[in-house]
């Protein structure tokens, strides 16, 4: 069934046309008494399966037309026109019925594929989250032991270290729980992508304002590089919220104080897409680890995992993007920073205006650390 994915629609339709021409030739060269009509179902089925519904119906009409042409031109007995009409209508209904059935089966196949993808995503996430939990719980347990046992002149310093570790373990568990709840939303079917028209800037602003305190405490500057006009994209708003909070959250987590995180919306020339990017001046990821980061935690089954800290959130983001036909792209240099970007289909922003707007002199929003109230 993977074939359906690998064949391009024009090529598949051309192949269906070729089959049709063979069937028609066979129809023409064989005696009229020989019934060739069922063979016309072949190109109809092919076109529907590989090119989706309406192309199947186009093929059904084409088959009927060709068959009728031969029937009228080649029938020496020349029956009454009503006979031709009746035959044409009956053939057309059978061909259309064929297209409708094949379309239904193909749709069910696609639904099944989506279901399998969702359940794979779910079980991946469960193992990811349990891994994060087990690590944090071990850290908590051992830290508590150290706190209890700490004595001597260095005890106070050790305790302070332990408090910081407990804080981090708490934050990590909190993130894990949040992503686990997202998993539940996926399970509840709310993350089967429901694309809607989304006001991209507003959505990103609301994500950032929710993260307000964490951003303020980080000592990292946030820069927004957005076009002045509004940007409407076609995507699932819930999924995009999760993706943006994971990417922006990661950027802040892995950028040391004094650094900068830039969230940008750009318009690559000539394509009706917006490219959203989250760029930081943080620790970066070694080139060899990019693929690991992108491929998820246990996917490869060879024990390789993502770079530290880029666990569940990045994987959820990547899977959510892929479930909507997009992909997460990673550019990163260790010690210099990372850039995570993806594209979203534009809804209504006129491409020409969009393409001119930001690339040369992008309108900048605040360069200073951003607070919730200046959004």
């Amino acid at each position, binding site marked *: 069934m993977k074939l359906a994915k690998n064949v391009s629609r024009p090529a598949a339709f051309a192949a269906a046309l070729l089959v049709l021409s063979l069937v028609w030739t066979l129809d023409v060269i064989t005696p009229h008494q020989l019934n060739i009509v069922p063979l016309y179902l072949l190109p109809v089925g092919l076109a529907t399966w590989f090119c989706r519904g309406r192309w199947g119906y186009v093929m059904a009409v084409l088959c009927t037309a060709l068959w009728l042409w031969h029937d009228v031109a080649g029938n020496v007995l020349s029956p009454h026109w009503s006979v031709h009409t009746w035959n044409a209508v009956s053939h057309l209904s059978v061909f259309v019925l064929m297209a409708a059935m094949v379309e239904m089966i193909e749709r069910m196949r696609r639904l099944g594929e989506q279901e399998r993808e969702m359940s794979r995503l779910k079980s991946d996430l469960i193992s990811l989250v*349990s*891994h994060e939990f087990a690590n944090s719980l071990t850290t908590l347990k*051992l830290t508590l032991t150290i706190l209890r046992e700490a004595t001597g002149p260095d005890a106070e310093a*050790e305790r302070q270290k332990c408090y910081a570790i407990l804080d981090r373990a708490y934050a990590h568990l909190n993130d894990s729980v949040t992503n686990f709840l997202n998993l539940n939303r996926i399970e509840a079917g709310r993350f089967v992508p429901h694309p809607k028209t989304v006001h991209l800037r507003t959505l990103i602003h609301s994500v950032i304002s929710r993260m307000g305190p964490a951003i303020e405490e980080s000592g990292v500057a946030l820069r927004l590089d957005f076009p002045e006009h509004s940007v409407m994209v076609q995507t699932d708003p819930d999924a995009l919220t999760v993706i943006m909070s994971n990417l922006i959250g990661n950027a802040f987590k892995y950028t040391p104080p004094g650094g900068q995180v830039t969230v940008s919306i750009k318009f690559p020339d000539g394509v009706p897409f917006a490219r959203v990017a989250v760029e930081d001046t943080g620790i970066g990821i070694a080139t060899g*680890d990019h693929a690991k980061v992108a491929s998820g935690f246990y996917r490869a089954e060879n024990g*390789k995992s993502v770079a530290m800290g880029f666990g569940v959130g990045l994987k959820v983001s990547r899977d959510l993007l892929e479930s909507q036909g997009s992909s997460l792209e990673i550019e990163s240099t260790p010690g210099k920073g990372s850039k995570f970007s993806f594209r979203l289909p534009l809804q209504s922003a006129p491409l020409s205006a969009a393409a001119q707007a930001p690339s040369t002199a992008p309108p900048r929003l605040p360069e200073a650390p951003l607070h919730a109230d200046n959004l």
Partner: protein
Amino acid sequence: MGKTVLIVDDDPDLRHVLAAVLGTVFRVIQASGGEEAVAFLRRSRPDMVLLDVTMPGMSGLEVLAEAKSLHPELAVIMLTSRQDADLALKALNLGAVEYVTKPFDAAYIRDEVARLCSGPGPKDDRPWRIAP
């Protein structure tokens, strides 16, 4: 004191607290990943390795194989959050002496390291132990 334990885990906080817990009894060396651990093992032979299974880069099982080829008699305890029987058997087949699932507590890991550091004791019938 005197016995050297190499801790290999990508989580710096976990590594730090594990080192602090074991540091009262053993000499502890930390490695943040498989490559660093292997580099250390090429130079030196600790008495014991505590090795995380799931790490970026080289996985724990790869490090285990490399460690056993460098020092066939080296005692390695695998640390993992995955209660995966297949993985446990794989690690034991590769020569790990013990398999500990996270979360574990300080007393348990101290006892285990002390027991296994004191040399090859009576052979345990069970294939691996689950932490209390």
